[in-house]
């Protein structure tokens, strides 16, 4: 049986998402069984790059208006500067032929990395499965993560 690697993606920052996907793809390349558990702000990484999310109640509506998410919309954890830093970073990455978060997500998915979305965060934030990219394999909670992490040789929180 292949060795397991698990990643908790808690952050919705673009730079951290890049690190997480790089690790996941690397793990898959050495033959590990990799799963990524997206929770809290990390859910933004696997949201569709579409318009406003449907949710009920004024607070959730406000939250989901401000926190639209989608791999394309992730901000930098440093030097974001209202999007200017992110724009410059995107240009540099293109110049260096470095894959974007969306491209890395596709590569990770094709390499067999499993994506899990946290249903607790989804419930709190009032978003449904329709908000997420089709690459998500499982919608689950802490037990789903722990069942993998218990046998994990590498378990990381990002």
């Amino acid at each position, binding site marked *: 049986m292949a060795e397991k690697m698990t990643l908790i993606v808690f952050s919705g920052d673009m730079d951290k998402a890049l690190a997480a996907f790089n690790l996941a793809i*690397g793990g*898959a*390349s*050495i*033959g590990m069984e990799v799963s990524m558990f997206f929770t809290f702000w990390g859910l933004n990484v696997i949201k569709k790059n579409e318009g406003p999310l449907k949710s009920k109640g004024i607070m959730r509506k406000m939250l989901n208006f401000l926190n639209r998410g989608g791999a394309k919309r992730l901000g930098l954890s440093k030097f974001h500067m209202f999007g200017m830093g992110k724009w410059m970073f995107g240009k540099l990455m293109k110049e260096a*032929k*470095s894959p974007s978060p969306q491209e890395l997500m596709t*590569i990770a998915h094709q*390499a067999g990395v499993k994506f899990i979305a946290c249903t607790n965060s989804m419930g709190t934030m009032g978003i449904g499965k329709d908000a997420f990219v089709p690459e998500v394999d499982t919608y689950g909670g802490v037990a789903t993560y722990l069942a993998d992490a218990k046998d994990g040789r590498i378990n990381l929180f990002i």
Partner: protein
Amino acid sequence: MKADATLDCVGLYCPMPIHQTANKLKELKTGQVLEVLASDEGIKADAPAWCKATGNEFVGMEEKGGEIKVYIKKTK
């Protein structure tokens, strides 16, 4: 060095060279050697490390004018 197949990863950064190496090696038969061309310095440490982690054989490395060639023998 002689190789059975070549993979061009020039201009690509981590983790793409090892990701593509892993995919390419699947097409090779056991005992065959893959040549990987790269420009990212990281490959010098990553290729032997990848071999160690996967149980394949790191055969060697050549470097000429910024282009790095690594050779990996499929043993798994």
